[in-house]
């Protein structure tokens, strides 16, 4: 699996030149390394399986580079502290899992409304409620996109490999700084806990983005001025720009207003900050889709099973491609639309009970044959399960010879 070139261009200046350091790391460890490489210097969190390693590693690493780690009393306090630190000028993040992520929702909306950059890592476990803390799931997809109340901006990113836990973590920090929004980094437990080879680039190759700083004196600075879709500068506290921040609808200087004109303008602007830049944000990896007659749509660890299934079916002569979603929001609509014109059989595979079905169906249209594999029992989806569905859809004698059977 590979990060598409255009996306990699937002993470590294160049993929060659300099010595890449080989590391054998766990996904959560790689994410911790990634955010540090991106310049994150503040972490606040609360222990929760299966994300705890991120907090543990950052508690050890941050003080050594004059960053700050603080274990808060709960997840609400954690994201509150993250937003405070971000206002004070730090690149800040928290890491959690489903129950904690639910608690954070109100302040994720606050981050969107007040345009305070932050990254929230949610290593997805089986739910709802306490569910099965050590078992994987992809059940938080809809919550990650729509969890907080009101219309709001958010970018949701789903890594599939340890390497992506590192590189996409850098990207998440970059996007949050670039757009002044909350970015949700959404690995599932399998990706968070698996160990793989990671090539860590030399620091000079890493593209680091920082929030803009004002170029005008304080008296001419309007922190929440709306001009098209432009993102305004964000001075840190203590830099001489004393402004007000509120979760209430606010005017260009950050003071509360009930003006419907401004409210509509602000809400539209906040959402459009992301949607108007979908071309720079919405990515999917396409594997063998060029002449594919069947396409598996998946993301996270589930996409790995899809890749394995396709490899096992390699000798059968079937033309199966994979559309691996990297950005769950904004969704890579244009890419999938293009594929829907050339291919009319899609199989959507996800570790939940169908959270992406409506989105995918709305993009590919009603004339296309869409089938799904949904599973929410705490077990990953095995390649054999994917093969089994493909087999029954379009049986092929070679499959039986290779001994691929449905284990369920």
């Amino acid at each position, binding site marked *: 699996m590979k990060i598409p070139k255009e996306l990699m261009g937002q993470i590294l200046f160049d993929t060659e030149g300099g010595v890449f350091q080989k590391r054998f790391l766990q996904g959560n460890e790689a994410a911790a390394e990634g955010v540090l490489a991106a310049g994150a210097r503040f972490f606040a969190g609360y222990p929760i399986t299966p994300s705890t390693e991120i907090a543990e590693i950052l508690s050890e690493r941050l*003080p050594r580079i004059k960053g700050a780690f603080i274990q808060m009393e709960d997840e609400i306090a954690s994201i*509150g502290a993250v937003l405070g630190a971000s206002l004070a000028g730090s690149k800040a993040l928290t890491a959690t899992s489903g129950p904690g992520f639910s608690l954070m929702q109100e302040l994720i909306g606050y981050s969107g409304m007040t345009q305070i950059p932050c990254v929230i890592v949610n290593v997805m476990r089986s739910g709802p409620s306490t569910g099965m803390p050590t078992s994987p799931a992809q059940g938080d997809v809809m919550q990650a996109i729509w969890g907080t109340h009101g219309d709001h901006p958010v970018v949701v990113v789903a890594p599939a490999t340890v390497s992506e836990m590192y590189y996409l973590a850098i990207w998440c920090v970059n996007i949050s700084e670039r757009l002044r929004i909350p970015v949700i980094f959404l690995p599932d437990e399998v990706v968070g806990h698996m160990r793989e080879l990671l090539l860590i680039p030399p620091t000079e190759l890493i593209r680091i983005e920082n929030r803009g700083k004002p170029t005008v004196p304080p008296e001419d600075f309007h922190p929440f001025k709306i001009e098209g879709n432009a993102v305004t500068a964000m001075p840190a506290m203590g830099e001489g720009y004393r402004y007000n921040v509120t979760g209430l609808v606010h005017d260009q200087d950050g003071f509360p207003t009930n003006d419907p004109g401004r409210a509509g303008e602000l809400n539209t602007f906040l959402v459009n900050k992301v949607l108007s830049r979908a071309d720079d944000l919405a990515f999917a990896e396409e594997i063998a889709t060029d002449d594919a007659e069947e396409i598996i749509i998946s993301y996270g660890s589930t996409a790995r099973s899809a890749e394995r299934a396709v490899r096992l079916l390699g000798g059968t002569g079937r033309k199966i491609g994979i559309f691996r979603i990297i950005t769950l929001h904004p969704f890579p609509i244009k890419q999938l639309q293009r594929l829907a014109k050339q291919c009319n059989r899609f199989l959507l595979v996800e570790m939940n009970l169908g959270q992406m079905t409506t989105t995918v169906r709305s993009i590919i249209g009603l004339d296309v044959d869409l089938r799904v594999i949904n599973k929410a029992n705490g077990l990953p989806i095995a390649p054999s399960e994917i093969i089994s569905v493909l087999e029954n859809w379009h049986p092929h004698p070679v499959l039986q010879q290779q001994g691929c059977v449905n284990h369920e």
Partner: protein
Amino acid sequence: MNDQMQSEIATAPSLGLQSQDYFRQNRLPHIWCPGCGNGIVLRAITKALEMLALDRNNVAAVAGIGCSSRSAGYLDLNTVHTAHGRALPFATGIKVANPKLTVIVMSGDGDATAIGGNHFIQAARRNLDLTLIIFNNNIYGMTSGQYSPLTPRGAFATTASYGTVETPFDICKLAIAAGATYVARGTTYQARQLPKLIANAITNKGFSVVEAVCACPTHYGKLNKKSSPVSLLMEQRDKAISAKDAQLMTPEQLTGKYLTGELYNENRKEYSDAYTHLFERVHETK
């Protein structure tokens, strides 16, 4: 402006800022009802800033949600109007990320001790250098008069139609027990004492709590047949006993009263100092 205030301003320190300079004058008048005590507390905060000659650029004022939490927006500082109950977590992030900032937190009794109750005791335990000023009006004002953890037993509220059957907190005792290193209580009746308590709280290197007892005639008063602002101020006069005077009084004499003034002051290692020492111990030498 009375003579006392005039003379206080005249002796303001060299930075030259007077208490009104800490206000965003163009945001006034405030939204509070006639007779509300919040303005007296807010004025005391700006007076304390004047007394300490603090540079506005280096002060952050963080508030939660509620009537009193609107205070932040009126101050010409780095101001944050956060979510209900969450002022202290935001303030914690600000202070830990930049310990050079003076961070003042403004919260109501419901904001600080109900929805934000856990953050309150945890912040006290950590002893991070924050100053929390709790505007205690014994009721939820913004939502029109529901009972709070500070509503006295038997008092009426829109959600306590027959009088509340709950026992209120003593904010100061709670703060002391949880580990705050400076704890004081003042009232809006004793308006001249309040700036001094707040200034001392800001000066204390550690977590400081000042409970400012203030009246809500519109909701608490109306529901409890004390809708005259004066009657609520008189009640403060009658119930407030200075900690010093209280030492000479019997428990019977103190029934139904509350103590005012400095109630606790302890010197204990402050959080960001402790964290800075940690830097020195583990800092990577490259």
